């Protein structure tokens, strides 16, 4: 028994090294084969012979798995549609960073070495700050599809994103809500151990100040928390006109339910994290009247969005959330950029992405600005009858 084990382990160890060396040979082979990556024609008629290698680094397991999975679905749906469209063949490799910075960095490194024309991701902003510089140094363009923290695109001229920052979404939300509900005094709640929600909080704080709304108290929680009763009771005692919450959907659902249960009936205002159909599905009645400022108008009737909603529902038997919508849009934008020059090498792609302007997408008319950030309409939604409706 004992000696068998030893052999097994020894064999496994040997296998690690054999496999590792195999992958190294396979990896370096495909790098910078830009010769095959340009083709004839422009736009829809563009046809490229070689496969366009794209890498995506998503958090498919670990703490951020639920976003990563939505993004994976969005990307795969887009990839499927693009394959049907023809002309360009994408070799999209989706990898899991396990919500671990070390994996994120390793994967960026591997995609850079393996010759990816572009890297999509990573899921979390903190991971982007850690791994985007690797692509920047190697001259590989990166398209962030969910990074909302400030300064991501300042990493360098190869770093783009199609996700609006919280700063682009929240002021509008607060302005609309203030107008609608006559807010004078609010309680702000946010999870202070998450980069996304913390930067959301900062945006809320600044916007509230701009609008002259008093923040009666700021309450923090942890992203893992699910019992908010103590915080809500505290907030309730302050008699606010609204609760402003910067949290992820995992927190949003119990928070909204428990608030209503405690008899808090003032509006609850959330950011991008709330823009998820599960809010209505899981919080039910309690979600009614929740205001959500978001980058993606899920109720938009633009043809791209309608087609996306339908295709997504058909493919996964579920409604998409904002992560899926932005991921889907991301790949579509990459396709658009490649077709504009009919070239898919790193440099051409970098140039073409920077020149995207007024592209009709699921997110609305989409442009990339001079800072390589996204420009498209944001929306203020309100939950009505179990659906997101535009707050007007």
């Amino acid at each position, binding site marked *: 028994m004992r000696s068998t084990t030893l052999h097994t382990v020894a064999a496994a160890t040997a296998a690690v090294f054999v496999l590792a060396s195999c992958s190294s040979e396979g990896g370096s082979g495909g790098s910078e084969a830009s010769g095959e990556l340009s083709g004839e024609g422009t736009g829809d008629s563009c046809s490229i012979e070689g496969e366009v290698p794209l890498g995506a680094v998503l958090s498919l397991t670990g703490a951020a*798995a*639920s976003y990563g*999975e939505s993004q994976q679905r969005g990307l795969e749906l887009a990839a499927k549609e693009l394959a049907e469209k023809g002309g360009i063949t994408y070799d999209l490799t989706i990898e899991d960073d396990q919500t671990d910075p070390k994996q994120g960095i390793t994967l960026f490194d591997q995609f850079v070495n393996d010759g990816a024309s572009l890297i999509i991701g990573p899921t979390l902003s903190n991971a982007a700050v850690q791994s985007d510089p690797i692509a920047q140094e190697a001259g590989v363009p990166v398209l962030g599809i969910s990074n909302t923290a400030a300064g991501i695109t300042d990493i360098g001229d190869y770093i783009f994103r199609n996700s609006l920052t919280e700063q682009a979404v929240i002021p509008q939300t607060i302005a609309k809500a203030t107008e609608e509900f006559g807010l004078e005094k609010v309680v702000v709640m946010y999870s202070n151990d998450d980069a996304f929600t913390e930067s959301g909080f900062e945006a809320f704080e600044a916007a509230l100040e701009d609008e002259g709304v008093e923040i009666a*108290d700021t309450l923090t929680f942890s992203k893992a928390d699910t*019992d908010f009763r103590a915080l809500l009771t505290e907030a309730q*005692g302050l008699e606010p006109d609204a609760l402003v919450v910067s949290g992820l959907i995992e927190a949003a*659902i119990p928070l909204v339910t428990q608030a209503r249960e405690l008899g808090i009936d003032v509006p609850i205002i959330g950011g991008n994290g709330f823009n998820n159909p599960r809010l209505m599905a899981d919080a039910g009645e309690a979600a009614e009247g929740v205001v959500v400022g978001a980058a993606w108008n899920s109720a938009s009737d633009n043809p791209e969005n309608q087609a996306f909603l339908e295709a997504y529902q058909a493919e996964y038997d579920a409604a998409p959330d904002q992560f899926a919508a932005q991921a889907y849009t991301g790949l579509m934008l990459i396709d658009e950029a490649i077709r504009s020059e009919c070239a898919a090498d790193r440099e051409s792609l970098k140039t073409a992405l920077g020149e995207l302007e007024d592209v009709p997408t699921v997110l609305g008319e989409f442009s990339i600005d001079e800072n390589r950030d996204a420009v498209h309409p944001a929306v203020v939604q309100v939950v009505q009858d179990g659906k997101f409706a535009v707050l007007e």
Partner: protein
Amino acid sequence: MIGPVPPGRAAGGHPAIPIHDENGTAVQQLLNGIFIGSIYALFAIGFTLVFGILDRLNLAHPSVFAASAFVGIELVTRGGMSLWAALPVVFVFGAILGLIIERLAFRPLKNRADAHFAGLISSIALAGMLIALLQWRYGPDTRRFPAGTFPDTRYEVAGAQVTLVQIVILAISLTLMVGLTYMVTRTRLGRGMRAVAENPTAARVLGVNVDRVTATVFAISSALGAVAGVLFAINVNTAQLGMGIAIELKGLAVIIVGGMGSLPGALIGGLLLGLAEVFAVQHIGSSWRDVIAFGLLFIILLLRPQGLLGARKVREV
């Protein structure tokens, strides 16, 4: 609920201490603390049972907590069971998980010199596998019990809102804990457990089937953790893969505060932690809540390492 409005944030950016002249808020917070504390206690009792009797820390316990919440939800949504029917099933499910954990992660190590560390690692490994299986079966998204699983009845107690669910949770937690205490102190099985806790070798000599007692302890511990998971998911209206990890640290704090191995200690520790957290939110600032929990833990460890209700260890040489 109209009262003087306290200033929002004091200079320096720290939240000001809100003024509480509202009886309702204070009572509500007290109840909030008791309800969450009772779930902490039920969860922690599983930890403390295994540690107390077998001297092992089972780090797969939190994943049982999460797994059973998901299984409970599936039983209700897919199986069409009522919550009352699902709870005993989950109890059994938890017990089976406990047996598996004992068999795979602990029994093979029992005669090893490093069983202490190895048991930690093997239970961590098993926990990781269990969570992976959960993700395979249920995906990474949050789940919850369908609306209407439990009647949405509310009561008002001294100006505070209490739901029927919370009262039931408290009742179930207390019943299970009292039942367990009775079992340990009064029954044959309980005597066997205490004998094993005292000295496994001597227990074996006295005819106690140590392996069976060990397995039973794991089963009971996990069954309690399983019920705690379901109750927690109902209480907060959500279940997620990471829910066990979120409560794990609190469970550890509870068993230290209450006294390792002490069942009443786990109850008191759980309630104390629940109340301390609420107190922190009320008077210190919500950002410092977790520091309060661990501060409490730390002080207890320094002043009374055996915990509030743990008997003083006699260390004779």
